């Protein structure tokens, strides 16, 4: 019996990108060319490398959720944190406090408002797992595995790029149509996660100001 399927639509890919930026240079360099190259020879490898260099320990964010169930978007604000070597946190501060922590196979969900703290295993959530495994494969330079899970497309140039990931895996497809990262150099500006039913959430990352 399972409860609390936390399907982090955008959170996880983001975390993974952050982690990817953190992994050893060798592993990154070992990665063969993935997806399409940008116009100025901007590649996924270079992007991942820049992300690592431009990484900050905490980044404030604003997330807007658009849903067919709603007449207007819902907004939350908070901070994303990365604690080396592999701990990632999404800390929601407004309009309520909630925290998600991903570490290895475990996702911990903590809500002050609901008075719960629960840890789940990624393994129970095939859709999530496909993300993790694909990215783990990329850490170890297993590009074939990443290509197997996602169709990757990199557009634009170093100054303004858009990386889109589309899962091949049916479990992944069931909850995610596409994940779009946009940014400049080693900085992510927005992440858009689109669900198959057209609902989407847009996260905007801002710099410098930590509430």
């Amino acid at each position, binding site marked *: *019996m*399972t*409860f*609390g*399927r*936390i*399907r*982090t*639509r955008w*959170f996880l890919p983001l975390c993974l990108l952050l982690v990817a930026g953190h992994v050893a240079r060798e592993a990154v360099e070992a990665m063969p060319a993935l997806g399409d190259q940008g116009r100025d020879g901007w590649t996924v490898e270079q992007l991942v490398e820049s992300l690592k260099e431009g990484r900050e320990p905490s980044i404030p964010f604003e*997330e807007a*959720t658009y*849903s*067919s*169930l*709603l*007449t*207007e978007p*819902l*907004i*939350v604000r908070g901070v994303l944190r990365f604690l080396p070597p592999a701990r990632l946190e*999404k800390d*929601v501060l407004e*309009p*309520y406090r*909630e925290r*998600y922590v991903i570490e290895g*196979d*475990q996702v911990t969900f903590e809500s002050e*408002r609901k008075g719960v703290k629960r*840890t*789940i*295993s*990624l*393994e*129970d959530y095939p859709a999530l*797992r496909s993300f993790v495994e694909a990215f783990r494969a990329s850490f170890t330079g297993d590009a074939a595995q990443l290509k197997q899970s996602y169709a990757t497309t990199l557009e634009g140039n170093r100054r303004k790029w858009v990386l889109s990931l589309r899962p091949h895996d049916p479990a992944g497809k069931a*909850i995610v149509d596409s994940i779009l990262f946009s940014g400049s150099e080693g900085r992510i500006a927005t992440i858009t996660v689109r*669900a198959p*039913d057209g*609902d989407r*959430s847009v996260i905007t990352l801002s710099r410098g100001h930590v509430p």
Partner: protein
Amino acid sequence: MSPRRWIPALWLIILAGGLWFTATQLSVRSDLGDLLPEGSTTTQRLLLTQVRAGLSGRLILVALEGAPPDELARLSKLLGESLRGDGRLGFVGNGTQSWSKEEQALLFRSRYLLSRTMTADRFSESSLRAALNERLDDLRSPLAPMIKDSLPVDPTGEVLGMLQSWSGWDAPTKYRGVWMSADRARALLVAETRAAGFDADAQESIQRDIRATFQDLMKGNGIPVRLLMSGPGVFTVEIQRTIEAEAWRLSTAAAALVLCFLLLSYRSVTLVLLSLIPISSGIVAGMIAVNGWFGFVHGITLGFGITLLGVVDDYPIHLFSHMTAGGSAPVVMRTIWPTMRIGVLTTAIGFSSLLLSGYPALAQLGLLSLVGLLTAAFVTRWVLPACISQKFSPREVQPGWLPKVDQLAKGRTLVPVILVLATLALIWSDTPFWQQDLGSLSPLSDDKKQLDQRLRQELGAPDIRDLVIVEGTTAEDLLQRAESLMPKLEGLRTNGMLAGYDIVSRYLPSCRLQQERQRALPERAVLEKNLGSALEGLPYAPGLFAPFVAAVEAARSQRPLDRESFAGTMLGRKLESLMVVQQNHWVAIVPLRGVLDRRQLETAIAQWGEASASYVDLKEESNRLMTAYRDRTVQLLGWGTAAISIVLALGMPVLNLVWRVLAPIACSLVVVVAVLRGSGEPLSLFHVATFLLVIGLGLDYALFFNRVEGGEADRTRTIFGLVVCSATTILVFGVLAFSTIPVLHAIGMTAACGSLFCLFFAGVMARKDVHVA
């Protein structure tokens, strides 16, 4: 044709027929559950049924350890998948299973009747508004994809709440999708066998296959992962195999010793082979009788029965010892028959008290030994003499010290001294008189018990010791009673008196409560009005909650659910284990976890003042059951002794002799008990049952010691026979006394000491004028 020819021929034919029958028709079973009694109280009967076939008895706890957690998780998944293909397992859990579509649909459809959060206020304007606000927060959270589909139908989140309240307390933590101990050293699985936990054969084959499946998975895997298994079924197999192996090993050793000893005593292979005729006939006849009466013979009955029948080996020994060059076997037989006959009769009375004990295991044993005894005596009397060739004359191999045995009688003054010493030992021993803890009779090692405890704790499985039992006249009555107990149990849990409990009402409310919830559901117009005001100012799409309004309307006229509604589902399985019906009597079994202080808990539950609910300490209860049977056996032993005395009084020419026969037995029993206590061994049912054998042996010895003999030579032969008999008995049971299995040790120790003391006391108390005929 002379009797000398046709009797052995006829016997051979009958024995061959009997052997054929036992080989082809005999059904030997090894299900320990078959040996369990029915129980005298409702609780006992219920518990015994549960022990026999209940869910908790059918669980095998499995753990994998010795590798990194990722590897363990991988193996657990593979093992779980393979085992789910095994038809003999009803269910295999390792954390990967989830609700099926049908089950989810059923829960969804019935949520307004099943959910514990359904109160009259649930759909008021303010409650609805609070719920709708919560859902908005959920939509903002990563939880959104999960609730998005169900939100328009179930905006108050009843299904999620239900699932959450069910899974909360007992599931182990998960790692990579499978159950894992908190320290991630062990992947945990649980398998439910369809066969009863006591069905040793079925359990063994299942466990063997689990091991084989695991070995297959491990092929080519460099990491030495260990597979650990525990649970009642595993214990059954272990106990059964240990007893079988040890009984076989020890009996073989004992039989070899006895044969060597007989060979040394009589220096004749023929005689040794002849001595096997009565006992083999007895065993075959006994097995056929038990099979005919009970429909099967239990493996354990067979083992112990044959041991008990060892006493009949004394009969041919008496015959051989009395044979001289002068008298032919039939003539000798006729002279010793009156003495032997009374010995057989009285021993038979002793054995038949086992038959009446009401304990199936002992009853089988009683019938086997009774029929075996009578058959062996019959064969000794009428078949054996005919088998001995007329020309056969045993060698006189009696050592010179034998006549001195009679000098023992001079030591008569020693008797009171020994008795006083024994009594003092009985009084001052620190050892409790009776064995109260059934567990100490278990041949399981402490390691095994600890492993079981640890796995149970890690899996959050109840430890099958502490239960609350709730009784009801109907299913509905039971559910209502169980419902009323839930807050009280919850109180005990918050007090810390127990770590957790599981009760049928957590999953299935009574019909009354379901109808109450139905009545509390608002009419469509009211609900629409409440919902409309609750939605004011919230950004939900218009008309979104129409399915919710329809679902509430449908629930208002829904048929309440009962146990059968869940048949064939995971929840149904759970309900079956928590709620049983027995002869139109409904019982809820509430397993408890982590009980701190049993006495305190019992008092607390008694203070509820609920006559239908009671706390049961399963260990205590089974001890009580065993004690009841022990007391019954002691009582029967008393009646048996009385009957034996009457038979002796009627059958013996001089009343004084009755005393001379019974007194040594009484004395030796006192000394045996003193020796057992002195060596720190409290008495158990098995000691008491063995007293019967001791009485049988004692009767035999005392009767022959007090036999009127023809002369000095005759007397010497009698004594020689008795010494041989006693020595063989001591050899057989002395070997058993070295067993590491408490039950075998108890039997061996009691019988060996008993035989020795019976011979001693019978010799000492024998009348002196016996050889002056």
